[in-house]
């Protein structure tokens, strides 16, 4: 930053046009302008993204607790992350969450995108807006609504399901059903977002391909498998990666609905970071766990960037 200089691409301005004040050093002035534009954002990002990233790495090798001396403990925290059975369970739960969330969200979003995109459907704009609405509801609020709907005594959904002979009991207290329930809440909140990405992908498919397929006698299903599906594969891969990244960060609805229970069956990595870092004050250990999350996210982001980065650059011309 401080060493940056400007390429003089534009001719120097005539001095008379600068309000009569002739700058002492044009290069210095230009540099000051660049610094002025960049400084506010860079100071914030350095202090609250860059430095914390390095600081978390350092903390992860210590037994920091927020009080007293910090002792260097080497890889002990990382060893605990990968040997402590309760932490391994949290990592496994997060993986399970991702494995449930990603395909369900993808299929729901894709099916609804196809439906909303169909020329058969009137009022498409209305449906698109309505189905996007859950995306602006916070996960915490969505969790309130779902917990009331699923309440074993007074829950409307529970009551309706019982009426058709399905007894789900108290899903949030059931170790087998708690995880699917918190996944369901997340799918409900975020499918609209992925749906909109799919809609954009669908609209990019050339109409001529469908016409050609129709002339060849392809019916609706074959047009889907032979045109839509392959043409949408990039969009689908993109959605898979961003859904996986979102799944790694699962926290809000779990905090509200189950607190990680029952029997830690919904305990995720971020829940564990929150509890060990901010409740038990094991800052060193929580930082090591944070780094595991960071590396996992970076790997997924790298995949996304390598495969889809060019998409963003296309618009920059």
């Amino acid at each position, binding site marked *: 930053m401080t060493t940056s200089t400007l390429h003089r691409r534009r001719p120097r301005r005539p001095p008379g046009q600068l309000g009569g004040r002739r700058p002492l050093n044009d290069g210095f002035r230009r540099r000051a302008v660049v610094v002025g534009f960049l400084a506010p954002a860079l100071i914030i990002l350095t202090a609250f993204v860059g430095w914390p990233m390095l600081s978390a790495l350092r903390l992860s090798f210590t037994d920091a607790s927020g009080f007293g001396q910090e002792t260097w403990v080497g890889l002990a925290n990382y060893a605990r992350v990968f040997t402590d059975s309760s932490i391994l369970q949290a990592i496994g739960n997060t993986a399970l969450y991702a494995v449930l969330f990603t395909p369900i969200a993808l299929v729901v979003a894709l099916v609804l995108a196809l439906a909303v995109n169909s020329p058969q459907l009137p009022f498409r704009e209305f449906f698109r807006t309505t189905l996007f609405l859950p995306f602006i509801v*916070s996960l915490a609020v969505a969790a309130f609504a779902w917990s*009331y709907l699923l309440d074993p005594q007074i829950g409307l959904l529970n009551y309706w399901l019982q009426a058709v002979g399905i007894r789900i009991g108290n899903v949030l207290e059931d170790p087998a059903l708690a995880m699917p329930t918190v996944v369901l809440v997340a799918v409900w909140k975020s499918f609209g977002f992925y749906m909109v990405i799919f809609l954009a992908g669908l609209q990019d498919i050339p109409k001529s391909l469908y016409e050609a397929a129709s002339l060849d006698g392809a019916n609706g299903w074959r047009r889907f498998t032979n045109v839509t599906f392959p043409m949408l594969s990039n969009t689908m891969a993109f959605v898979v990666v961003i859904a996986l990244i979102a799944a790694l960060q699962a926290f809000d609805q779990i905090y509200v609905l189950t607190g990680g229970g029952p029997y830690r069956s919904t305990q995720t990595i971020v829940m564990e970071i929150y509890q060990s870092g901010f409740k038990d004050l094991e800052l060193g250990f929580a930082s090591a766990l944070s780094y595991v999350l960071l590396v996992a*996210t970076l790997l997924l982001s790298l995949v996304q960037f390598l495969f889809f980065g060019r998409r963003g650059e296309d618009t920059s011309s």
Partner: protein
Amino acid sequence: MTSTLSRPALTPPAASARTTARRHRRFKLSRALYLVGFLIVTAAIMLPVIIIVLTAFKPASEVNAYPPTLAPTVWTLDNFRAIFSELPFARLIGNSFVFAGGVTLFALVFDSLAAYALARLDFRGSKVLLIVIIASLMIPFQATLIPIYQLVSDLGWVNTFAGLILPRAADAFGIFFLRQFFLSLPRDLDNAARIDGASEFRVFWSVVLPNAIPALLTLGIFTFVNNWNDLLWPLVFTTESDHGTITSGLTLLTGPGGIIPQGVMMAGALIAVLPLAILFLMVQRRFIESVASSGLK
């Protein structure tokens, strides 16, 4: 297959007209069926939203009644009265507006300044800086929360708006998003202003920014919604319940072991969603389109 796919060129005109009329009727019927079916699907998906709205107006006796009902038989505002009298709810709403609004305002100003430098001021190292910013976009804030908390705590900013807002006053995604938008604006506009002797800040402020209002609006709404809805951040930086936001406050007071009745909770949830719903409906088309085209995180 064969019946619906008639080839116009090979069909005699009269037969073609008959098929078209029949097909038209069938088309209309299938459209209607499709519409009804999809309305039912949409209503089922919207059930949680519907239940929030309807329960918020139910008296306590109906909220806890068995068998449960969808709509209230008696409509009441008791739940809204209760949430304002029993909780520091007005305070929480105010906190949410200051927090989400503050972050949005700062981030829009700081991000657009930096984005302008990256898009318009050619300086050595701009490519590297852009790559660093894109890389930092991949860091989840949950992973750096502990050092951020330590820093905020050392500054004495826990339970203050400064602690809530300033760490988010600039955002790598916003810088990248606005840079892309600025690059799409024609350079002729700002070069004309430069030739007229305008300073870079003037070009930025009076030429580029006014043309970037759609992008600023999208980013602003996205930032506002994200922060308004965020739970973990206010949970960490506000340890006293009346310093929290509507999202964290509602969660603390109604969450696990909550003390607040369901009806009151739904009234709170409705109030929490309402400003966002209004904001979203005002600009929904543009918002959805930019989400689609940019793949906003």
